[in-house]
């Protein structure tokens, strides 16, 4: 039996992890495991997709698809399963299977139905065009409650070979992206698309902006800040209030940059992703971030951001599990968990919570084909991060199930 065929014998199953982690909801463990192992669809599951009703269009980096595959799923608790299509060869584990059961999409594992899901529904504006003739779904992406604005397709940490983050799949797209404009969006298209989206009452709760790091400018990152100011001002033209529910996932800006951004826009939340909670691993995994900002300076900027945006409006993303990557990551899951949670505690004492995604060893990344941690590790990581956030009294809403949906640990803030 090959390594990939007997993976189930080498790590605890979902059922065992549920028993061993009674404080974590089984549905959240399933979510983490689906993110970890990926999914495939059967023909019967895809036959349930109606591209007039369900969201099948995706514009992300260079991917611009409009097919018959749902972009994501929601289980019955209303959260999101933002999943990737996977094969055993890519992850070393069997992906979950979405199949039809009595005419309803269900997640299956080993032939056993686990949980009912539904496909995300398409927002009204997806079928509309801007006055310039641009299809609106290509301007702004949608999640069930969120508008996603991807400003640019290139991360300039890759300008220096090997400078980008080692888990990031954008590495493979760098050569195609490096000469594109700093901002891919036409601001009139953007203003119009957001305006059209807001006409669908009850659909959207927040706006998230993100893009690759832009290092140029009088000071490093000045051009990135200027781009976001222009974009946020275009978005903000649709609101009657000075500030509007919004989150910027971007590079860690210095005091001058951050205060300019806050002063000139209606932005409410800020998420500069530190990615890995350890100075030594950060230096190895995120060399560009280390060179242009540095681990300790990144943390200092996070703390300053809390002064600007307020407690609960600043957090940082981590790629949960990447701290165990080989050859220089933590050698055991116990060690990785202990150091990660210790560092998360220090951040939380300064008002910064963590939003952990589940590391996938994505094709196109430097870390492709690496083995990601066990589900038990993710169970303990998500529970630990949630407990730290609660202990430090940090509100959970900035990156929760409605305003994001990618992070099992922030979902736990619902209860």
């Amino acid at each position: 039996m090959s390594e990939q065929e007997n993976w189930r014998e080498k790590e605890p199953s979902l059922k065992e992890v549920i028993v061993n982690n009674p404080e974590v909801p089984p549905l959240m463990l399933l979510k983490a495991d689906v993110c970890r192992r990926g999914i495939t669809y059967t023909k019967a599951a895809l036959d349930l997709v109606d591209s007039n009703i369900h969201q099948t269009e995706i514009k992300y980096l260079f991917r611009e698809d409009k097919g018959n595959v749902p972009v994501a799923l929601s289980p019955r608790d209303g959260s999101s399963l933002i999943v990737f299509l996977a094969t055993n060869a890519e992850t070393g584990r069997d992906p979950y299977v979405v199949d039809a059961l009595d005419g309803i999409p269900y997640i299956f594992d080993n032939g056993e139905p686990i949980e009912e899901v539904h496909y995300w529904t398409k927002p009204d504006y997806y079928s509309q065009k801007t006055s310039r003739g641009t299809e609106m779904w290509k301007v702004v992406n949608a999640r069930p409650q969120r508008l996603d604005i991807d400003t640019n397709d290139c991360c300039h940490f890759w300008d220096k070979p090997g400078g980008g983050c080692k888990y990031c799949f954008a590495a493979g797209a760098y050569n195609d992206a490096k000469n594109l404009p700093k901002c891919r969006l036409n601001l009139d298209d953007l203003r119009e698309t957001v305006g059209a989206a807001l006409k669908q009452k009850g659909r959207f709760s927040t706006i998230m902006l993100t893009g690759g790091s832009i290092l140029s400018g009088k000071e490093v990152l000045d051009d990135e800040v200027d781009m976001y100011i222009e974009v946020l001002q275009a978005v903000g033209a649709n609101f009657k209030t000075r500030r509007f529910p919004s989150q910027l996932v971007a590079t860690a800006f210095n005091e001058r940059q951050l205060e300019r951004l806050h002063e000139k826009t209606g932005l409410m939340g800020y998420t500069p992703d530190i990615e890995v909670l350890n100075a030594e691993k950060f230096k190895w995994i995120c060399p560009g971030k280390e060179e242009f900002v540095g681990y300790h300076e990144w943390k200092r900027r996070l703390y300053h951001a809390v002064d600007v945006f307020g407690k609960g409006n600043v957090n940082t993303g981590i790629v949960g599990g990447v701290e165990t990557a080989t050859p220089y990551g933590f050698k055991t899951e116990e060690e990785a968990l202990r150091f990660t949670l210790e560092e998360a505690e220090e951040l939380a004492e300064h008002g910064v919570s963590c939003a952990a995604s589940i590391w996938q060893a994505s094709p196109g990344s430097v870390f492709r084909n690496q083995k990601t941690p066990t589900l038990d590790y993710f169970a303990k990581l998500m529970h630990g991060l949630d407990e730290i956030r609660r202990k430090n009294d940090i509100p959970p809403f900035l990156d929760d199930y409605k305003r994001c949906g990618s992070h099992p640990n922030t979902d736990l803030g619902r209860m």
Partner: protein
Amino acid sequence: MGIKISDTLKKVLENEQLVRVIISNGKEGKTHGSRIHKMSVLDNGNILYFEYLESSLTNKNLIYSLWFDKEIEIFAEDEAFHDYSIRGIPKKAIIEGEFFEAEYRKVQEKFDGQIDLSTIWEIEVTSVENTDLLELSKKEQETYPMIQHLDRIAKD
């Protein structure tokens, strides 16, 4: 499949003029009751509870109940002061889609845009009890004749 709700009780549960309370418990162990502003009963007997506040303790407790299969209780009283206790388990949190948006628009209209709609909870009913005091007292005396004050049965 949960327990069916009678047409009489359905009218009570859906009457916004009557007192209806949802009682729940959560991760922190805090039992919490709050007034129900809107509730309806589906054809399959499940109850829809409309929660307006995302940050309310009820909302937190309901997701706890959904995740861990824990019962919540709904208390209702009809116009003749007969009381009902309905227990159930939240099975679905509806936060988007055509039905949610239609209900959201009704909330906006009713409250002139001052109230949001967070979640429509679908609750599967596990038991229904008539908790009218006189009936309960009668049942208690029949079932446990040992437990009453003696003067109530003393000769005059």
